């Protein structure tokens, strides 16, 4: 007979492991990856592969040579970070920028805090925001879906190329135009016509200001395109349907609970809805907010990152609603057309505080206090 094992109870375990959870997240991201490959072609593949490989490589190198630990890349968390990082950048981003971004994501965002479980900020977002700040031009030049599909991907990207292939994201179009006052001298009368650009104008494809030139702009994509992903944007954020499929998978596999995505999406919808009701001329319809700018990607995959989200359900509501409000505020009042990444990072910073002050409801606690 073998020697008996002795350990304190319990003696049985759920078969969930960190590895399984991470790979479930990867599986949930696959539909979005498929869609983005369809729309962005080779670029999406290259960017994703680069990000994944460099994230894993950096994690391994840092653990092995700097921290001198047993590398733990097999837990899949670097893989998830890599994919998420790729999903947050345009598909034509130069490879070297991605590699730097990965280094920042893993090195600064994760390892400098002690690795998985200790990082206060979502590593992929740290990487993304770093790139956004350091390489704003490249990070905000999105290829028009379909245009670059399987072409041009080997060529280094020059400024001219960028111009040729980039399309603005829906949020960018709106952010750059709505509310601006357009002045035009009527040739016939000599009067100065003033016109404040409204959402409706943009929906109708009527005006856009580019320097002083007035030209008709392509329409903001229809909802159908937005759902499918046929819009400009980062690799992973463009197809709402694919992201929702991933969400369903995560729920079924009990990897995440519905609370975070629902609280974010709900609060964005409500806040944007209220603004829209107040002034539909200036504030776009709330559905539009939901389907663009990586909101779904952020709500489903980034904000739900275990390490950087609160532990109690009450805390999660605070966190989710906070992200929702900040996102809409940045989009509507701020200079950046997109706010999800920043909103999540800001709320990440509050998570320790939330965990400290918002505790789960203890059994028998209220009764005790009520006595």
């Amino acid at each position, binding site marked *: 007979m073998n020697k008996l*094992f002795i350990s304190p109870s319990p003696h049985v375990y759920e078969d969930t492991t960190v590895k399984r959870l991470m790979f479930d997240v990867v599986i949930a991201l696959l539909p979005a990856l498929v869609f983005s490959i369809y729309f962005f072609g080779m670029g999406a593949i290259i960017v994703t592969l680069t990000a994944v490989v460099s994230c894993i490589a950096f994690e391994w190198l840092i653990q092995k040579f700097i921290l001198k630990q047993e590398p733990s890349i097999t837990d899949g968390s670097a893989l998830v970070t890599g994919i998420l990082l790729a999903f947050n950048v345009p598909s034509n981003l130069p490879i070297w920028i991605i590699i730097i971004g990965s280094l920042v994501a893993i090195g600064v965002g994760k390892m400098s805090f002690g690795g998985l479980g200790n990082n206060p900020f979502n590593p992929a977002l740290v990487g993304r925001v770093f790139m956004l700040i350091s390489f704003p031009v490249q990070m905000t030049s999105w290829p028009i879906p379909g245009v670059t599909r399987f072409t041009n991907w080997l060529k280094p990207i020059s400024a001219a190329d960028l111009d040729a292939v980039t399309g603005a994201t829906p949020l960018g179009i709106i952010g750059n135009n709505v509310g601006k006052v357009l002045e035009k001298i009527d040739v016939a009368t000599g009067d100065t016509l003033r016109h404040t650009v409204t959402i409706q104008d943009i929906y109708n494809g009527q005006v856009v200001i580019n320097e002083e030139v007035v030209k008709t702009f392509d329409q903001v994509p229809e909802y159908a395109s937005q759902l499918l992903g046929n819009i400009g944007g980062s690799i992973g954020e463009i197809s709402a349907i694919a992201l929702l499929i991933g969400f369903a998978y995560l729920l079924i596999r009990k990897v995440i609970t519905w609370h975070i995505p629902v609280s974010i999406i709900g609060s964005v919808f409500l806040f944007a809805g209220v603004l829209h009701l107040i002034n539909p001329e200036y504030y776009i319809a709330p559905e539009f907010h939901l389907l663009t700018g990586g909101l779904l990607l952020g709500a489903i995959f980034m904000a739900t990152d275990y390490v950087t989200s609160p532990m109690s359900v009450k805390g999660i509501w605070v966190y989710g609603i906070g992200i929702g409000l900040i996102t809409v505020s940045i989009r509507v009042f701020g200079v950046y057309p997109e706010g999800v990444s920043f909103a999540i990072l800001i709320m990440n910073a509050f998570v320790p505080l939330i965990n400290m002050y918002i505790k789960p409801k203890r059994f028998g606690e209220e009764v005790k206090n009520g006595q």
Partner: protein
Amino acid sequence: MSTTILFTVISLSAIGSIAAIILYFVAQKFKVYEDPRIDQVEEILPAANCGGCGYPGCRGFAEAMVKADDLSPFYCPVGGNETMTQAAEILGKAVEAKDPLVAVIRCSGSPEHRKRVNTYDGASTCVIVSGLYSGETGCQYGCHGLGDCVDVCDFEAIYMDEETGLPVVIDDNCTACGACVKECPNDIIELRKKNKKDRKIFVSCVNIDKGGIAKKACEVACIGCKACVKVCAYDAITVENFLAYIDPNLCKLCRKCVDVCPTNSILEINFPPRKVKVEATETVETKKVETPVGPTGENEKKENDNNIINQEG
């Protein structure tokens, strides 16, 4: 643009200075009088904040000493007599010198002597094992070998010997702060007098089972046979609950007991190797242990072995 910057700078500095002024007054208001000698005493303490004195941190100790009339209950094991005399000078009081102590591990149950009869698979700390059951071996009193004492030592004075699975004290580093003594759930560690040349003789066992049971669980267990009691000329040894104890204050380090112990439970440490009678070599196992100087005690051990061989030759 520049006005904005100017405005920002001015307002920020204004806020800053107001805050500073408020802080200053608040600090003044809430300032408590502190005996300046507390600082002086704290200055000379080792600042290890190990708690070996029984107070939370060196400052707590300094405060208590300043307040007290009599310094005799106070002792900083880290600083030792020297520090205590200095402190006494500052406070104008007297202290008595105390014998320096050192931690010793009273268990020799390496796997070779003490068979492992089951496999522990829980959280890796001794205190959890001891809360759960009698441990991986038949001896419920002995060392669990999971190193709680190592974790708690602030002075890197203990390490786990991988071969024996037992902790080893590096006497030169040990300040006798007593942290490990408190931590060990099985009370295996004892602070004993650091004699001349750091020589020590002690019973390296804490098993209080009857002889037969103890011996079955561990070959080097004290079986309470009292052979050592009989041979000790200074009445330093007592046997209680089938376990011998050598009083460090009475022991004269004559080493007689070491030879008579049938289970080799008594250790002698830092003694020069002695002449071994030829016919005795077979039965009496050598028990000479050098104070290790670090986790790689290998060399010393070899040297020691060589010494013994030379002596025999």
